[in-house]
């Protein structure tokens, strides 16, 4: 086993999961416990339930839609595709999704085909929208003048992960679901067998670094939004 395989396939998975889970749990706990005596609701307050209003914000970005439609277009497609890709990665770790789809009448070939088409399309959309978000940081003055290293780093890291992911779909070193599932399974039984695919190793390395980075970075916003939106939406 190479050093990279050892790092990416054996050490980092445990470190990344630990740092991510503990880091996020700590953030949530602090955010939850910090006192808020004054009422900060923005009026007119949403008519339905608070949970509904906050959920709507996290799913459809209606406030942003009112404020900046171009950014809404880029960022909504970026985030939705990211969520779909995260879902798609269930197939990478377990054959369970395949089994369910097959039990519903699809053939194994159909499942692979569907995955190729939707996964391939998602990979292109997210690369394009991510690149547009990056370009925006250089081109639009009001964004450029507030962008810092962390803003570029987060996007570049994500884009590199996306790019290596796409390489495994469209390039020479195609991913091998059998190997990745065996790897994940081997981690759970603490007897690691790590794929040797170089692109895969780089992709997995960066993805795990991302998970370690999240609790300390601006990507925290995916958790913060539930708190910040609830503060201004509760009636």
């Amino acid at each position: 086993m190479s050093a990279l395989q050892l790092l990416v396939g054996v050490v980092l998975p445990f470190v990344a999961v630990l740092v991510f889970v503990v880091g996020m749990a700590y953030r949530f706990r602090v955010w939850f416990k910090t006192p808020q005596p004054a009422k900060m609701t923005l009026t007119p307050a949403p008519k339905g339930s608070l949970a509904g209003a906050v959920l709507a914000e996290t799913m459809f970005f209606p406030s942003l839609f009112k404020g900046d439609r171009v950014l809404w277009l880029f960022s909504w497609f970026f985030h939705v595709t990211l969520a779909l890709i995260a879902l798609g990665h269930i197939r990478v770790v377990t054959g369970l999704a395949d089994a369910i789809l097959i039990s519903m009448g699809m053939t194994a070939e159909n499942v692979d085909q569907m995955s190729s088409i939707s996964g391939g399309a998602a990979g292109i959309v997210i690369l394009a929208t991510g690149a547009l978000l990056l370009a925006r940081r250089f081109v639009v003055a009001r964004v450029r003048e507030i962008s810092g290293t962390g803003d570029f780093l987060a996007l570049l890291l994500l884009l590199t992960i996306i790019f290596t992911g796409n390489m495994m779909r469209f390039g020479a070193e195609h991913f091998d679901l059998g190997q990745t599932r065996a790897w994940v399974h081997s981690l759970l039984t603490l007897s690691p067998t790590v794929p040797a695919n170089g692109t895969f190793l780089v992709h997995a390395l960066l993805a795990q670094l991302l998970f370690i980075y999240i609790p300390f970075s601006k990507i925290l916003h995916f958790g913060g939004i539930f708190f910040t939106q609830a503060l201004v939406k509760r009636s």
Partner: protein
Amino acid sequence: MTKSTNTEKVIAAVSAIDQGPKVLKTYMETCVKCGTCAEVCPVYYGKPEQRFNPAWRSDLVRSIYRKYNTTVGKVFGGLAGARAPDDNEAEKWADYFYECTGCRRCAVYCPFGIDNSVITRKGRAVVDTLGFTPPTMQKVIEVSLKTGNTDGATPQAFKASIDFLEEEMRDEHGVDIKIPVDVVGAEYFYVPPSGDVMVNPEATTGVAKVFHVLGMQDKWTMSSHYFDGANYGLFTGNDAHMKADNKPYVEEAKRLGCKVMLMGECGHAYRIMKRMMEAGKWWGDLPFKIMNCMEFTAEKIQQGKLQFDKSKNPQPVTYHDPCNFGRSCDIIEEPRVILQASCTDFREMTPNRGENWCCGGGAGLSAMDSIKEFRMSVSGKKKVEQIRATGAQYVAAACSNCKRQLTQLSEYHKTGVAVGGVHDMLSRAILINGKAAERKDFTG
């Protein structure tokens, strides 16, 4: 005071954000720098420069927070957007943070609902701690804490004003319309901004006429000591001052034994009473309710208890939603009910309600003559365009600060638009014994 102790004070004040409030704490860690706040900010609209970009201004605080309160900031410093404060950080902040009108419009459009006014107020609190609060603001605070009102008026001066207003109303209607003062046991305790007694008193005569028509002239009172809800502690970020300024009003309400504290046409005063003092239980549970005079009057109009001669207000009238009423207190439809009942030609400006643009004088800026040029040509630029587009000749605003800013904008840009309150229009059109006020022509 040496530079280093000043720097230490800045660091200590910023580090204290970890203790809350939750809005501030979460805003330190959630902004993604998308620039949407700048797109919807009245100041940045007036002059699109980095200095006026809300996220950049908020980052003045955030970057110091990162340096001392976060792991990445401590380890990676500037790479993580962290920095130590300059020797004269607070002096610079005294300029920067008094260039935000605290209107909360950014929070409406921010995908996270981040309210930059909260960070502005924190920035100003730091400025205040180090003694760099702009002199105008500092003076208003001192006067208010000493006398109970921001004009420094004595109870005698107040009573003289009230006598004058009662005389005016007698001239207008030929009957005695009372403004009761210091009546223990009155049901309603009316707390306007002092401007609505001293400077633009028509709002107060409007309220008096409403009580008169309802036959409730004995059921309300004002206080000769506490007749000014304005509270500049909100604007300087000094919580101790804000509470010290607020407490005598609550005690006066208890002393008078009122059932309702009826707040006047002053957005920030109502917001402090309702959303901060009452919600935060500063003085425990209260033996009285807090409501706004516009809620009171609108309800009576909808019940058909008040009649008007709309022809007394023939000119096109528009309503400017003050930020603290429209975006922070949900007093939105009530002023419209009053204006539509008392004016012939009511027009909406666009956008309006919770999305209205700030007058450009919010968060106390309106009182600062030192930045008048900025208020006229930068922060108020959008407002002038918005009012012009309505074709209105009178803009009603339920806020003394908005009224000052809007009046100055009207003069500076020579728009010829008259500015006043909401109950002002009611006062001119309400029927008493079947007749509206006989007065000079207001339309000019």
